[in-house]
């Protein structure tokens, strides 16, 4: 609490200073590159390959925004941020947007003065346990030792869950995910708890993943999404509607394969036409050109393609769409209409 108040004060100070500066859009255009805060390394979400090229689910959002604004998905300067530095980096203007698996919470939105542009991944905290333990539900974990990363919301959620169910646990505090992996495999704890996406990627690296299971309970809501500073609504709109364009493209069947064809001339579906700028001028309202969404989709494909390429079932991480399916297929991924 103390810390967030401190960060909030910092953010407020910059917020006041930020008014004097020109709009973020102009800054980004003048710099010719988008400064995008990402994780220092999180499997499937943000990582640099052997050639130093960034890739991942969050990285794809940065590239889409860069393509929409600057016309080049590679015109991004990726700024690796840690859980501790990410908010000040955004508040101080060191980065233009943050796409770093950040949970949308009340205090971050209101108190820290940020604006979440939407949700690109619905996560939730889960538990992983060895099958040899012979349990099928987290409610049977009475008296278990639990590996938990300290100083995160997962720690608080864990306490809430066990208290609500009237069972006891023994926490084993650890610092990083890789340490947790090692401790869990060495048997230092019975259960490992973190976000379900993290559990999936951790389990995938095990020598024998089938000996371990992710328990069905999801004990928290973790909507992850890109965010920007308060005070520049136009820039917030650009990031929000770029994300919405990727989501809508999946819904309308616009993919990286056919986006060029659809963009070249107006087709039968008026919403596709509006999205890709062959009809009306939605881009102009944002201060961009007509083809902005078409370029954003062309970089990495639509939302579904980005998901499948980085974390989908055919990748080593192998996360099913689940909550993150389009609303037409029973998920929560939903975009306001392009009209």
């Amino acid at each position, binding site marked *: 609490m103390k810390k967030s108040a401190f960060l909030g004060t910092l953010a407020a100070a910059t917020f006041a200073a930020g008014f004097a500066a020109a709009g973020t859009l102009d800054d980004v255009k003048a710099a010719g590159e988008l400064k995008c805060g990402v994780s220092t390394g999180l499997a499937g979400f943000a990582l640099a390959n052997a050639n130093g090229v960034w890739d991942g689910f969050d990285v794809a959002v940065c590239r889409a925004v860069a393509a929409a604004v600057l016309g080049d998905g590679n015109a991004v300067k990726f700024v*690796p941020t840690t859980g501790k530095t990410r908010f000040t980096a955004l508040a101080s203007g060191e980065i233009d947007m943050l796409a770093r698996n950040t949970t949308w919470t009340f205090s971050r939105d209101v108190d820290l003065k940020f604006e979440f542009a939407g949700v690109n991944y619905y996560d939730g905290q889960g538990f992983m346990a060895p099958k040899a333990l012979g349990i099928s539900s987290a409610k049977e974990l009475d008296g278990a030792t639990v590996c938990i990363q300290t100083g995160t919301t997962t720690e608080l959620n864990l306490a809430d869950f066990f208290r609500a169910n009237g069972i006891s646990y023994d926490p084993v505090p650890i610092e990083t995910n*890789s340490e947790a992996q090692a401790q869990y495999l060495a048997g230092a704890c019975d259960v490992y708890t973190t976000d379900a996406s993290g559990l999936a990627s951790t389990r995938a690296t095990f020598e024998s993943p089938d000996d371990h299971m992710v328990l069905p309970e999801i004990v928290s809501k973790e909507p992850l999404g890109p965010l920007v500073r308060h005070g520049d609504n136009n820039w917030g709109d650009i990031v929000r509607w770029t994300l919405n364009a990727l989501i809508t493209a999946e819904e309308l069947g616009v993919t990286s394969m056919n986006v060029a064809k659809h963009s070249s001339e107006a087709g039968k579906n008026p919403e596709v036409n509006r999205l890709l700028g062959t009809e009306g001028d939605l881009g102009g309202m944002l201060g961009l050109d007509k083809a902005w969404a078409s370029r954003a989709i062309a970089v990495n494909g639509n939302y579904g393609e980005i998901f499948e390429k980085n974390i989908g079932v055919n990748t080593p991480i192998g996360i099913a769409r689940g909550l993150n399916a389009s609303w037409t297929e029973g998920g929560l991924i939903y975009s306001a209409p392009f009209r």
Partner: protein
Amino acid sequence: MVDQSFVRTEIVPEKSAPLSEAGIVGWFKKNMFSDIPNTILTGVVLYIIFMVLGNILPWVFSPTWNSVSLTECRSILAEIGRDGHGNGGACWGVIRERWLQLMFGFYPSELYWRPVLSFLLLGVALAPVLFDRVSRKILFFTAVYPFICFWLIWGGSIWFPVSVFTGFIISYFGFVIGSKSAGSLAGVLAAMALPIIWWFVLLSPVNSALNSIIPLGSEAIDSDRLGGFMLAILIGVTGIALSLPIGILLALGRQSDLPILKGVCVCFIEFIRGVPLITLLFVASTLLNVFLPPGSNFDLILRVMIMVTLFASAYMAEVIRGGLAALPKGQYEAADSLGLDYWKAQRLIILPQALKISIPGIVSTFIGLFKDTTLVSIIGLLDPLGLSTNIRADMAWNGILWELYGFVALIFFIFCFSMSRYSMYLERKLATGH
């Protein structure tokens, strides 16, 4: 009666020691098996060494150099009947694929020669400082080296480092001319004021003018492409090179009779020593940004270098103060009685002795500083440890710990051990005790 007692007239020739006392056998007998408790201890230690090596060596010698993922490592190890990754053998493919990244970060691979060349030139620049047999003339190169290094690593227009260096030349001439015409105080003032005017007022117009006349430069590299050991060495060497002179000045300032100067030095040293380095790094990475005007682009690596240098300087000052305090009062009085002024006394009599006493402490601070550079991974810079997190985010290598950390530890050991050996060499060379 003749005395028949035998007196030997020639000296008995020397014999080599009996076989049981000489050579390897003798050494073992004397040092390892001299009595029963020692024999037992030897046996126990041998057993422990055997157990440790027996576990580590098969892990190290694991035929996985050419693998492209942890999965492939596992199948290779399973094929030769080892006990899986972790216990059975290391997965060295990650080092083969990523060692250049661990060394250079995201520096463009076709330009690797630039950091390599600046590292080699660092050796040349340091040679006259480290070894007295090297020609003193190279010291001129040492003075220019930081600017060459900056230009090689960051690239960009050559006129920027050249004109910053010109500031120092201006300072020198300001001092010479000022002190000749209007006394030493005027000289010091001129030496401080002139370069500041040059750097802050004249530098950028002159720079752009030169650039438009003769656009000479190389491809500019953004700071965010620096990483790995290159970053650790850059921060470490900058900190080491700057903290020694600043530390000496602070230590002298703390012993000074001038109250304001002394107060400033004491406050600085005590403040910096009172906060952990990680706090200073957070100040560099987050707070400074908030206080600077929006849109100002003050390079993060530069900010970190400044903070690390300040931190090391404060510790260095205390180490050197220890050396100064260890000198007998007679040395100071002797310097005074020779009629030397303050700076001459420090330069010729006090500091050479004080620094010699402080060598072990100074080198410890250097080694500590170099290892502390890994803390920058906490503020999101991709130093070797930060990079190893990033490498593990690649699903091909997720789950690999020991190989990466072992490699990083090995490189750090090489650097720190060399520093420590050099300090012992220096102590032996400067030993004047009898």
